[in-house]
């Protein structure tokens, strides 16, 4: 009997999808699918819109990471129209995207991922969620909420709204930060840095406790895609970087993305399968997101984060880390960097400088590409403007999308480990923190 395991829907996931695993008579895994069951066609209905309005539409692609979806199309239009922005605007945008990185990574760690570790991967599904964690570990829960709150409030202060921000405009930012607001966030900063350190401690304890899982389950060699600013980890500005499974690095200017990034359209998912074109499909399947960024980076942009990166590489290797469960570790390293960058720009009074928008903005018929690193991976907008600045065409390579093929590949790998090699049986698991 061929057996099909279906998971519908995948939960604690942003977006809509299901899993299908097909096991043959012989007990072998025949197929593992990740079915993304919805898409809303932003690339189509942005046609005909004012180019400068596209950044006010596309944040609705993702309510968790709307800030990269606001800034990246803005950068793409600036690239098309040949606009450069004043320094205060650049600083405000760095602050904004890092505030989002901070709150989103913490949301991911505490609300989406932590229940698996704190309640245990085989815990009661009815309890394996953040609500239960908050009830059972109120101290950790309150700390997590205060951290997300800080990040989201900072997003709202700089972005106008934390969900679906509005403050970036082609040419800069619509408004600088008010000085009293800057002071308010500076006041809370020290506590946030302490909280971040505690979170790293919790994360490292989880990694240690679950070492058998981290080291042995889902160690899947793939390519990786991310961005760096001349080799340094940067989520706002830089070039696309590909890392091969054996650790070789290849850099591409954003405008040359079509040389590197291909979309294979599968028959079973509305999200396409991204891959590294020179390696072909499926060999060139890559993964994105924090572990990919860590694999791309020669170094982190800030001192504490760079130390944390070195510690991770000392444990998991320096070339290219393929441990799927190390994503959680990588995410914490990025969280450290985010709060350090937030500190850097909050301490710079230039973010209150009203000279944050250039008047030198003229539409022209041209195409432009913008790239940032969203919390779930590389985000790329390719926009075609007509002479009046109307969007003629748009191509989007969205962060989560970069991971779909990689997730499916990891799923196949883990399904084989679990079904064929009975990997779960020998696995050493710690007692759950919450019993």
């Amino acid at each position, binding site marked *: 009997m061929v057996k099909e395991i279906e998971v519908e*829907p995948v939960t604690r996931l942003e977006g809509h999808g299901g899993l299908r695993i097909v096991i043959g008579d012989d007990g072998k895994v025949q197929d593992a699918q990740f079915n993304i069951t919805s898409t809303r066609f932003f690339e189509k*209905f942005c046609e005909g819109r004012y180019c400068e309005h596209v950044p006010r539409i596309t944040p609705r692609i993702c309510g968790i990471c709307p800030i990269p979806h606001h800034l990246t199309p803005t950068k793409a239009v600036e690239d098309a129209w040949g606009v450069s922005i004043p320094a205060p605007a650049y600083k405000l945008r760095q602050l904004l995207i890092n505030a989002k990185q901070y709150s989103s990574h913490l949301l991911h760690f505490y609300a989406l991922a932590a229940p698996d570790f704190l309640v245990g991967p085989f815990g009661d599904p009815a309890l394996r969620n953040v609500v239960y964690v908050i009830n059972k570990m109120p101290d950790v829960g309150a700390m997590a909420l205060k951290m997300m709150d800080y990040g989201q409030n900072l997003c709202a202060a700089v972005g106008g709204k934390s969900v679906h921000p509005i403050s970036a405009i082609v040419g800069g930012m619509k408004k600088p930060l008010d000085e009293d607001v800057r002071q308010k966030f500076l006041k809370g900063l020290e506590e946030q840095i302490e909280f971040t350190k505690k979170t790293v401690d919790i994360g490292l304890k989880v990694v240690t406790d679950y070492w058998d899982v981290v080291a042995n389950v889902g160690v899947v060699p793939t390519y990786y895609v991310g961005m760096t600013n001349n080799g340094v980890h940067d989520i706002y500005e830089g070039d696309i970087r590909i890392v091969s499974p054996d650790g070789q690095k290849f850099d591409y200017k954003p405008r040359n993305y079509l040389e590197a*990034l291909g979309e294979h359209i599968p028959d079973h*998912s509305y999200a396409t399968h991204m891959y590294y074109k020179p390696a072909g499909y499926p060999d060139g399947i890559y993964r994105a997101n924090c572990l990919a960024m860590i694999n791309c980076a020669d170094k982190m942009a800030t001192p504490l984060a760079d130390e944390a990166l070195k510690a991770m590489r000392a444990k998991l290797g320096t070339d290219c880390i393929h441990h799927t469960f190390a994503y959680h570790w990588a995410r914490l390293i990025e969280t450290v960097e985010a709060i350090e960058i937030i500190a850097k720009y909050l301490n710079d009074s230039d973010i209150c400088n009203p000279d944050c928008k250039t008047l030198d903005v003229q539409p022209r018929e041209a195409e432009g590409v913008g790239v940032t690193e969203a919390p779930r991976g590389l985000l790329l907008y390719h926009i075609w403007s007509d002479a009046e600045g109307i969007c003629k065409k748009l191509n989007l390579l969205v962060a989560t999308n970069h991971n779909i093929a990689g997730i499916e590949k990891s799923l196949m790998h883990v399904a084989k480990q679990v079904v064929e090699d009975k990997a779960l049986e020998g696995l050493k698991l710690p007692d759950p923190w919450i019993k």
Partner: protein
Amino acid sequence: MPVKVAFMQLSSCWGCHQSLVNAHLGLLQVLPALDIVYWPAVVDFKHDSLVARQDGEIVVGFIEGMIRTKQDLENTKLIRQKSQMIIAFGTCACYGSVPGMANQWTINEVQSRKFMEVESATTRRIPDQHVPGFEDKVVNVDDVIDVDIFISGCPPKTEAIVGAVVTLLSRTAQPMSDTAFCNDCTIRSDCLLNKGVVCYGPITSNGCSLKCTSKGDPCVGCMGPSKNVANEAQKLLEISRGLSGASQGDKKNLFEFLALFFNLPLMAGFDLRIDPLRQLKKKGRLLTPLPDLPSTTAEIAQNAASFLANNPDFLEISNVCQTCPRIRGNGTMTKVKRDYEGIPNLTDCLIEQGYLCAGPVTKAGCGGLCIRVNAPCTGCYGQTEWVTDQGARYYEAIKQSFNVDLSKEDFLAQVKDPIGTFNKFTLASNRGFNRGEL
């Protein structure tokens, strides 16, 4: 006992959930009161578990997102079937939001761009295995099922969502009292109805603290209808037949009365205030039925509803301009400016600085968040009035209340993207458009 709630996620961005989660520490008070039986974003219950539940078992079903896929349509019907009350949660569920703009094209054209023509694609096909397929157009949720409460906003403000949840939780079932409020009223001898003030005491259940009338204010009906009406109901009925003569305060209360009387929670002062009106506008009736009302009560409620459905004054109370801190009268729109042009000042009306701001035609409730950072409103809380030609309506609205020195023809000619400007969030709910009348 925790209340059973479920969150259905249709095609969406998750932002409404993020806005709810943004309550952060505020969640600590709310969560213990909720028994969350379905919420894919947060908890691990699967679809089968929802199907297995009894009809009406869930007290409040939230719907987030729009109907884009056939699965969305099925899920919409499913959550309606399982829930006593449905809240359309966010602008997607209320109006279709930005993805509704895809309704300008056929589904084939739309799919083609993504799967057949896109520059980075190296294979070209429309996925059709283990995926649900698309509806031809983005379908509005309330075209398919009855919705009890609309909370609009992209996303709705955190306070509005928490307000709704808290109100719903604290709302105990209120069985109709046998007798009406008048029975307990301390100023019955000096009855407000005799002075022409609209007081809903005669048709409202007694048992409250009499807070309103003891201050000299009329009863607004917050205890819900009573089984029997008081003698004064006749006076109220007569007033309700001629509501056009009512005072402005009474007109505001009309709406509050309907919302409270029909158990629609009032939140944040705005969001739900207009929603009964929207129901009336779009469907010509309130969607939240109350069975077995005394005939006088039913007639009074109907008169109030009809009045609101046709009352333009009422609309003017609740657009974004009402909550905008900017000053009018310091400038004049002489040409339509694009958002990238110049830098607007932070104190004067954006329209009178030449920018297209949707404030005058957009439901209030946001508190003017965009305007405060110098970004014009683009209408995410939905339209105050439902007409087919939103462009002409917008022009009339700004011409009437703002300094605008442009003819309608010039104005409309300068707007190069009318769909994105006037129907950005609501195209899927614009009946005229979807019937091909535009």
